[in-house]
Every structure is written in C-alpha cells, then in structure tokens.
C-alpha cells in the first residue's frame, strides 16, 4: 500500500513540471511589458530596463523558467510583483480560508445530497424522487455566482440578516457555503441516485433479502456501501475543485481565498503569484485525488487487493 502511495507521489513530479512549464509559457504570451508594469506608471525607460535586468526578464523564456524551477526546488516561489511580499507566505495566508470554505461547502453538499439521493433511489418515481431530481437538475444548471448574488439580494440587501461579503464570523460562511454546496449537492445527488438504482438491482441485494435482512438494513448495510464507491469519487473530485476553483464564488463574496488571489494576480499581471497559486492548487488537487483513490480501497476490498499487488 505505502509503495503505491509513494509511486503516486513520484508520478506527481512530472505532472507538476509540466503544469508549471505550461502555465509559465502561457503567461509569457501575455501582451504588455511586464517590466514596465512592475516599474509602475510614469517610470522612465532606464528604470524599466533596470527592473527588466534585475528580474531576469531580458533572458529567453526557457532560461527564466529554468531559474524559476531551480528556485522552486529550493522552496522559493519568488516574490510578488505587485505587493513585493513572498509568494509562498501570501498563498499560505489565503489557503486556509479557501480550505475552510471548501470544507463547509462539501459538508452542506453531502448533507443535502446523500439523503435525497438515497430516498430517491429507494422510492423511484415517488414525489420525493421527482421533486428531488427536478431540484438537482436546476442545481446543476444554476451558475453559482448568480445563486450567490440572489442570496445577497435576499439575505443581505432585503432581510439584512447576513453579511454580503468578507470573512467575519460564522455568519459570513453561510451564503458562500450554500452557494458552493448546492451546485455540488445536485451532482452528488444525481450520482447517488443512479448508483443506488444500479446496486439495488444486483443479485447480492436479492441474496440479502432472501436471508431475511430487513429492508432498511438491506439499504444501509448491503446497498449503500457498494453504491457509495462512485459517489466518493464525485465528492472527492468536487472537493478538489472547491479547493482549487471557488474563484467565482470567492469573487462574489469578496472571500479572501486563493481563488480570488489568482483572479487579482492575473489582473495585475503578477506572474509569480499566479504560478505559485496554480502550483499549490495543482498539488492540492492531485493529493485529494490520491486520497479519493485510497478511500476507494478502504470501501472496496477488490481494489485494495489490486493496490497491494502493485
């Protein structure tokens, strides 16, 4: 098992190199003179040249990239062009905010989605099923930044009971977490339902019933554990993307997280910050995926056996 984990972590290295190279290359395509932007408005040509030389921007992209990677290997993500603060510490101060929001959002999503999905499947075509599935369809179709704005209209502007943005106390979590959670809930709910429906038709469920297992236990013990295997993947992937891309919701609610940091840095052409964020988010995303795969093994002994062989 640990060999498998190690292997997966090692496989992460080329992916990270690829990602940084790709993003570095894309960012180097940006129009406009980075040195001029950093030097600030109204700086004379000499200052701009000095900045360019200072940051090594006069060298070819590949050389710049090499230097960046060399520093990254030494744990140095560089310094922000706009704030002049180290990239790593800036990200590290935003990341916990994103993580906290992601945690509560996925909790909201699971709390809504699992019960509805399970009930929908066990009582297919009932009222609960129909209402639940229509809601899930709507949930998937609703852009979360729009939902966020609607919540702001109702709860902040009209009722005045929740703060419209920022991160201050538990109340400020409610709307962002619901905004992010409902979209994911819709996906997880649909997945749970279809997976449950699939499992309920399996022979071993009939075996369980034939043993005299009460219907509730059949669902809870025999069906759910099997049905949850694909659901866990979806939850994991959603959690990963929450950690990496709550960009829009963070922007709507002025949430001081990594997603907003990326958007702001892109707007101010702060390449080291953008790169740093993407490296961090890619690592997080990949590690979450690895954890999901390991959770799989925990639920499904067949997969565990496969990992052990490797």
């Amino acid at each position, binding site marked *: 098992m640990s060999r498998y984990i190690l292997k997966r972590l090692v496989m992460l290295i080329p*992916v990270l190199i690829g990602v940084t190279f790709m993003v570095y290359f*894309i960012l180097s395509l940006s129009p406009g003179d980075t040195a001029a932007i950093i030097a600030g408005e109204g700086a004379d040509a000499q200052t701009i040249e000095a900045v360019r030389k200072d940051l090594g921007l006069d060298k070819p992209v590949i050389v710049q990239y090499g230097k960046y990677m060399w520093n990254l290997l030494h744990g140095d993500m560089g310094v922000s062009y706009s704030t002049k603060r180290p990239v790593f510490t800036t990200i590290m101060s935003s990341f916990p905010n994103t993580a906290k929001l992601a945690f509560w959002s996925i909790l909201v999503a699971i709390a809504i989605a699992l019960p509805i999905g399970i009930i929908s499947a066990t009582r297919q075509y009932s009222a609960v099923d129909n209402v639940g599935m229509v809601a899930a369809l709507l949930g998937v*179709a*609703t*852009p979360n930044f729009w939902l966020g704005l609607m919540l*702001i*209209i109702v709860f902040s502007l009209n009722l005045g009971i929740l703060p419209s943005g920022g991160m201050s106390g538990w109340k400020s979590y409610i709307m962002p977490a619901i905004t992010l959670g409902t979209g994911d809930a819709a996906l997880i709910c649909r997945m749970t339902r279809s997976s449950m429906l699939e499992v309920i038709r399996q022979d071993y469920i009939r075996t369980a019933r034939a043993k005299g297992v009460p219907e509730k236990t059949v669902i809870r013990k025999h069906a759910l554990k099997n049905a949850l295997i694909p659901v866990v993947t979806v939850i994991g992937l959603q959690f990963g993307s929450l950690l990496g891309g709550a960009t829009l919701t963070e922007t709507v609610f002025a949430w001081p997280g990594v997603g907003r940091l990326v958007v702001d840095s892109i707007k101010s052409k702060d390449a080291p910050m953008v790169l740093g964020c993407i490296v961090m988010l890619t690592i997080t995303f990949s590690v979450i995926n690895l954890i999901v795969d390991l959770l799989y093994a925990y639920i499904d002994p067949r997969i565990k056996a496969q990992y052990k062989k490797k």
Partner: protein
Amino acid sequence: MATTNNSAAQAGTATKKRGQFKETWRRLKKNRMAMIGLTVVVFLVLISIFADVLFDYDTVVIKQNTQIRLQGPSAEHWLGTDEFGRDILARLVHGSRVSLSVGVVAVSISLVLGGSLGAAAGFYGGTIDNVIMRFMDILLAVPSLLLSITIVSALGPSIINLMLAIAISSLPGYARIVRASVLTVKDQEFVEAAKCIGANNFEIILSHIIPNCMAPIIVQVSLKVASAILSTSGLSFLGLGVKAPTPEWGAMLSGGRAYLRNAPHLTIFPGIAIIITILSLNLLGDGLRDALDPKLKK
C-alpha cells in the same frame, strides 16, 4: 457502453445505421423531459439566428439611452432596461448568439482536437499514447476554470480567445472518451478484417473506429456545450470575456452587480436565461444518453 458500440459496429451496414438512428429517435421521443429540452434548445437556436430580425443591434441592443436607465419590466420593455437604458430582453436575445456560438465552437474545437489526439493515442499506443495522455494529465491537473482564466488573460479577452481557452481546458475529456472507445474497438475482428483487405490506418480510424465512439461523444457534446456556456458566463463575469458593449449573459449579470439593491432585475434575468439554456441542454443530453444506451435506464 462498450457492448452497445460493439453491436452497433458489427451491424456495420448503412441500413442498420439508419435503423439505429431511427430507434434512438423513437426512444428519445418517448422521453418527455428530453423533448422539452430539445424544443427549448431549438427555440434558442432560432432566436439567436433571427436575433437581428427581432431587435436591431445598433439602434436597440447597444445604443445607450440614459433617460430610461434601470427601469423595471413594462409593456414597452418586457424585462426592463439596464444601467445604460438598453432593453434587457433585446440584449438577452443577442447574448444568446455569443453564448451558443462560444459553446458550439469551443466544443467543436476540443472535440476535433481532443478526439484526434485520443484516437491517435488509442490506435498507435506505445510512446505516442504515453506522450499524448501525459499531456492530457497535465491539462487535467489544473482546475479547468483556472486554466481558462489563465489562457484568456494571457491572450487578452475576446470571443475567439474565450472559445480557445474553453476548448483547451476541455480537451482531456474528449481525448479520454475517444481513446477508451478506440481501445475497446481496436482489437475486434472487423478492424483486423479491414487491415487484412489493405485499409490504411487513417481509413480505419475514420471509417471504423470513429463511428463506434459516436454514442458517448454525442452525449458528451450536448452536456459539454452546456458547461462551456457556463464557463463563458463565468469568465465574462470576471471581466475576462467579451468586450463591452457586446451583450453577453455573464457580462450583463456582472454589470448588474452594482445595482443589486435597486434594480435586481439586471442580475436576475440573465441568470434565468443561463439556467434555462443549461437546463434544456442537460435534459437533452440525459435523454440522448438514455436513448443511445437503453440498458442504463429502467
């Protein structure tokens, strides 16, 4: 999925193909939700084609008229007016052009590009497969919205760049589907047979393998157009989409943010337009999936 493909493949002949199409259509027609989705999608497509007939672009859609700004819905302006006094309905109708065209073009690009890469990877295997799929892994490792944001910001905001950005970030999905389909089909006897009668690789890919991945691809396309439209509106919302004054749903929504308290309709209506579009595309996509693979439904 694989067995459906195989049986379709073995059927092979033109008449059988048409039979399969008819059968799919028959099953789709029975699905009420999918038909609602299809109707709405067709309606939206017609609206965007005839947008100019409905509302003139220069005099209605982009011309500012500040005397009537921020008005609520009325007989004259069904959905009210925006912060520059422009008719919101007219802008939504013209906005459907942007959304649908970005959706369709982005998906077509990534389908052709991703599909070819996936087909090549699956067909040739070995090093080619490895190189292509590792590249896809790299694309997949970056959350897709973030990737689109980076690309658009580097290339500069414009409709074309928006399409490219969304297309690139959804490449891996198509590559994987097509590669998987190719792998299941590749070693089957009819491909061996085609090789034996001297068909070259390109012919084999084109005439034997691609038709066999059609079912999952059609489903993926209808669902992906929906998510491309969502991404477009998201990017525009961040100010990385089309340039003003071109009407785009996400941008309209974003423009309304400043007037949330007094003129929420500026934000509400574009959102509803997005929801209706995505919902109907998803209904259609789900319906197609059930119709193409009836085993999944019961």
